[in-house]
């Protein structure tokens, strides 16, 4: 962990130690936990939410919930697992709430100057901020077409490369449910891609 490496050897405290201190009453130590995990949580939240303020809201909710539920952490599993499970569930809840006011619509601007298929072949560099934003928008738009559960499973399995067992641990869903959702996710994504292709063909012709 980046933040952990920055501390000197004597100052390094494990997550579990920090949790014990915070539960013991020293609330200020929670800031150290936030500093350690916030880049990862932001990275995760931005996979699900295009709007920056939505991502910030979710991250804030995640850390607030973590603080409120910290006393329920038993320490049997690593804190990281417990925390990631809470984070994914918070993202899922936020996605469900947002489903009532969808932001993902297939815009014609996505087909303006470059073929959609061609775009998939060109992954922009980290320095190309504009290209990266466009690419992310493309991914959001396609993933926005699939159901929330399926999206969570697809993101964890296909984009983050997690195994079914890991996903069951993170989400708390049964293995069969995860497998069903993974299958459904691929199907829904294929349908979304097909819609894109047919739309592109229509626009081109």
């Amino acid at each position, binding site marked *: 962990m980046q933040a952990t490496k920055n501390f000197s050897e004597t100052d390094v405290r494990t997550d579990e130690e920090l949790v014990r201190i915070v539960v013991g009453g020293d609330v200020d130590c929670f800031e150290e936990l936030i500093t350690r995990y916030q880049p990862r949580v932001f990275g995760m939240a931005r996979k699900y939410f295009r709007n920056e303020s939505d991502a910030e809201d979710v991250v804030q909710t995640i850390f607030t919930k973590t603080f409120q539920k910290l006393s329920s952490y038993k320490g049997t599993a690593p804190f990281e697992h417990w925390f990631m499970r809470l984070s994914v569930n918070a993202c899922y809840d936020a996605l469900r709430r947002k489903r009532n006011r969808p932001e993902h619509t297939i815009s014609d601007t996505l087909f303006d100057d470059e073929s959609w298929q061609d775009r998939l072949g060109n992954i922009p560099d*980290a320095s190309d901020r504009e290209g990266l934003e466009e690419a992310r928008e493309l991914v959001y738009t396609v993933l926005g077409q699939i159901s929330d559960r399926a999206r969570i499973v697809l993101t964890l399995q296909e984009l983050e490369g997690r195994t079914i067992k890991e996903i069951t641990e993170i989400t708390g869903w049964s293995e069969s449910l995860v497998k069903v959702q993974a299958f459904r996710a691929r199907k829904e994504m294929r349908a979304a891609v097909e819609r894109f*292709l047919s739309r592109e063909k229509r626009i081109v012709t």
Partner: protein
Amino acid sequence: MTANEIEKKLLKLAKAVQNDNRAPVNFSAQVMTRVREQHALETSSADERFLKFARNLSGNEHVPYAFEKRIMARIRELLTPDPLAFWSRMLWRAVAPCFGVMILAALFSAKEPTAAFIDQAAFDPAETTIETVDPESTDFETVMLASFDDLEYTW
């Protein structure tokens, strides 16, 4: 016969032969199967390409400036007791018991003798006893309607 003449004759013969417009049986179905296969191939490859694209897209882990301070401020806010929030929570908790009391009071008053019965009993001195008119229910009614009585006086 020269070669040119033979060629002309053959052309004439070829023109005379009628075109066979018949298509082989199930030809369209065969073509459509090929088209569908090609389409499925294109789509699945696009599907895979999309996943590869999304996977290789670098994540944005940028953290807004002093975001941890913002969260800590929010947490400290949560820790500070808010008397209004406490009061509203208590009020909400009181809703169910109050509703229960209201139902019980309604049932209790429904079982009591009606005003007509009380009036009739008043004309019959033999039946007019202290027990027929329950003083508790009349007291209860007086107390419950006291605020409305006051309103009448005000108007």
